[in-house]
């Protein structure tokens, strides 16, 4: 194989217009991955603005900065944005960028389908956000959707959701969901068919294993959501009665369908984060990952169990006790493989020669924060405890620890780890340390007091609260964490822009890592590898750097 570029459109065309054009028409998995992450970062800021408005509103009791209706729109758009337009695309973007590089392939299995998926996601997001302008419908009511991110019926019926706000929610999510499904198909085909010679399943980097599992979960969960949304559209436009209690339709049925999607979705959002941590912690601990086969087994069992836990979102609905008990038991069960992972990461760090780069700091922060969120999750699996705290701020605190403290910290860790690979330049470490501490302080200030206000009885999704109930202090502290997080985001964005312009040149392998993405130049050429690499062990690059002591001797 020669080193001739596969794509004739190159960066040599200098003009801004032609450079944009080359990105728009690109089918290169690296460009698509970066566009996923970039677009996700923009939506992250939009979702952050919505969160900031909510925290400002809740800063003091009986505040009237936002109307009740506006507040409903904010929490709906914040939740929907963060789950569907930030979490999924950013994680799928990392998968897109890294999977072919890690398995020694030139591109994804279906490059054009890949580009199609990206643009479906972007247009789905734009469709959702267009609701701010076009959601009014004929009746002059609405605006952005205001039914919560899980859009419980009958709130979504024509009678209670006048105008087209809910329709934008349905269609925006559906379109970007189709994009995610095409990407998942691509992941599966790439991982099963495009591995370089010698890359057996048990030599794949754990990130690839985790993304493979995520692919299965996307293909299984998202069609159910799409089906439920089609039913909702039929209800709203054709007068069907799926979720219409007046014609014996069941509003609980929507909850079952939504959460059958919703709980695997939680793992779609956290498993890639696990994968990032599995790559980053060993490299910065200078030790191989502890218990690789157990990690794979734990991942697959998490995915399997996640199909049978959805009713724990519905304990307060009033389902029969035997059903609640079964789902409480399965929810406890899922803590076992997750706990295994936790111990394996700590086992990897144990006795290692740890280098606390910013990436490693975020990874360590992830361990702490995710453990905390996981423990409150186990608390919520206890049915009577959940009856008391369901739909309170305790739940909000719990899932923000998991999704912000877990997924987003892992994403920041991954940004600092792989940015040099994608751009050829290192992010500034001092500025990164500030970012880390801003996020850790902001996160703790904002989300820890939510557990307390929740235990004291503060319900979620209510636009204000009365004074004198003991909520004031905790809400004030929660709101005071926001500026720290804003500074964190601004520092990160500044860092990215500054490092793109004059960051330190990284070289192909700045972290002395072991996996194949570091075996090629930074940024990689459009064909990834001038010569398709071969793989002799789970750490092929180590073997190449240490021919006298290759890893494959110990396999």
């Amino acid at each position: 194989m020669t080193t001739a570029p596969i794509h004739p459109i190159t960066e040599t065309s200098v003009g801004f217009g032609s450079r944009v054009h080359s990105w728009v028409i690109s089918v290169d998995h690296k460009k698509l991955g970066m566009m996923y992450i970039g677009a996700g970062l923009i939506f992250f800021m939009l979702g952050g603005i919505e969160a900031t408005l909510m925290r400002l509103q809740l800063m003091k009791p009986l505040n009237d900065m936002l109307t009740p209706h506006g507040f409903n729109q904010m929490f709906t758009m914040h939740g929907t944005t963060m789950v569907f337009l930030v979490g999924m695309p950013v994680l799928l973007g990392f998968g897109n960028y890294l999977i072919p590089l890690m398995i020694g392939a030139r591109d994804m299995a279906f490059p054009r389908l890949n580009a199609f998926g990206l643009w479906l996601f972007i247009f789905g997001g734009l469709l959702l956000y267009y609701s701010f302008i076009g959601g009014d419908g004929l009746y002059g009511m609405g605006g952005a959707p205001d039914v919560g991110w899980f859009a419980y019926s009958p709130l979504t019926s024509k009678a209670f959701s006048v105008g087209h706000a809910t329709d934008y929610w349905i269609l925006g999510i559906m379109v970007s969901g189709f994009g995610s499904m095409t990407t998942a198909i691509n992941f599966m085909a790439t991982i099963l068919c495009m591995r370089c010679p010698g890359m057996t399943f048990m030599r794949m980097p754990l990130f690839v294993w985790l993304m493979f599992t995520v692919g299965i979960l996307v293909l299984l969960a998202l069609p159910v959501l799409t089906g439920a949304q089609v039913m909702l559209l039929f209800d709203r436009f054709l007068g069907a009665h799926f979720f219409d209690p007046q014609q014996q339709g069941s509003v609980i049925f929507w909850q079952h369908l939504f959460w059958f999607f919703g709980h695997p979705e939680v793992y779609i959002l956290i498993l890639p984060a696990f994968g990032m941590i599995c790559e980053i912690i060993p490299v910065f601990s200078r030790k191989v990952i502890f218990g690789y086969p157990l990690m794979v087994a734990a991942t697959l069992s998490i995915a399997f169990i996640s199909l049978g836990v959805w009713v724990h979102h519905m304990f307060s609905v009033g389902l029969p006790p035997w059903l609640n008990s079964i789902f409480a038991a399965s929810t406890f069960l899922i803590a076992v493989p997750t706990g295994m992972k936790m111990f394996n990461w700590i086992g990897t760090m144990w006795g290692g020669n740890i280098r606390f780069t910013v990436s490693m700091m975020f990874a360590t922060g992830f361990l702490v924060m995710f453990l905390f969120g996981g423990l409150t999750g186990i608390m919520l699996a206890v049915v009577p405890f959940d009856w008391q705290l369901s739909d309170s701020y305790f739940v909000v605190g719990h899932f923000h620890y998991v999704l912000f403290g877990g997924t987003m910290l892992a994403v920041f860790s991954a940004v600092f780890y792989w940015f040099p690979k994608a751009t050829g330049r290192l992010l500034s470490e001092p500025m990164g340390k500030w970012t880390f501490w801003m996020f850790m302080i902001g996160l703790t200030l904002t989300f820890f007091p939510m557990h307390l206000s929740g235990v004291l009885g503060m319900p979620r999704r209510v636009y204000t609260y009365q004074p004198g109930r003991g909520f004031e202090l905790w809400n004030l502290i929660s709101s005071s964490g926001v500026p720290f997080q804003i500074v964190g985001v601004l520092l990160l964005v500044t860092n990215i822009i500054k490092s793109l312009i004059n960051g330190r040149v990284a070289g192909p392998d700045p972290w002395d890592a072991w996996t194949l993405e570091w075996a090629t130049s930074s940024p990689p050429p459009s064909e990834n590898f001038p010569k398709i690499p071969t793989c002799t062990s789970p750490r092929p690059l180590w073997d190449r750097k240490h021919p006298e002591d290759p890893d494959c001797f110990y396999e």
Partner: protein
Amino acid sequence: MTSIPHTNLIPSSAPSRGKVGMACLIFAECWFFAGFIVAYLFYIGKSSSGPFPREVIDIKPVLVNSAALIASSFTVIAALRGLARSHMGVFRFWMLLTIVLGSYFIYGTAMEWKGFIVDHHLTISTNLFGTTYYSLVGFHAFHVIVGLCLLTTILVLSLMGHIQVVRDHLRVELVSWYWHFVDAVWIVVFTTVYIVGMRP
């Protein structure tokens, strides 16, 4: 590099990415249909007013219909066998027969719907039976139509001489996978609607 033993270099015997892609698509479609099948089963006997399934469903034409669709799965296998042996005439004949059988199925569904709508005044908004019936059977029919479009495209391309055995056998085979999937879903839908759903 030289000291690394290459004896443990296992050559990758990877499956075709097209097959994996189509299998994944079919896997996802199964879960899509699962939602509508569960909805149908969940709402059996819950309609607050008629018409009810036993009053309107006539099983005989549906059986003929189903026979046509199931037969089309075998004709598409025969077509593929013809293509594999480069007998383009045989291939085209069986493809045409597959398309005719699939189209007959759609015609039969249309006639059934016409009877429901015109004679029994059952629409998607009449009751829960109408809601679940039209959405489940309708989505299946939609998938049959997509399959027919794919098969017709292949037949037209073949008549124009654009189908080459070596290059296109796998592609046609993948479309046949989709067609078998549509057929298999019909067996589940048939069981749900015309057997389980008919219980008093």
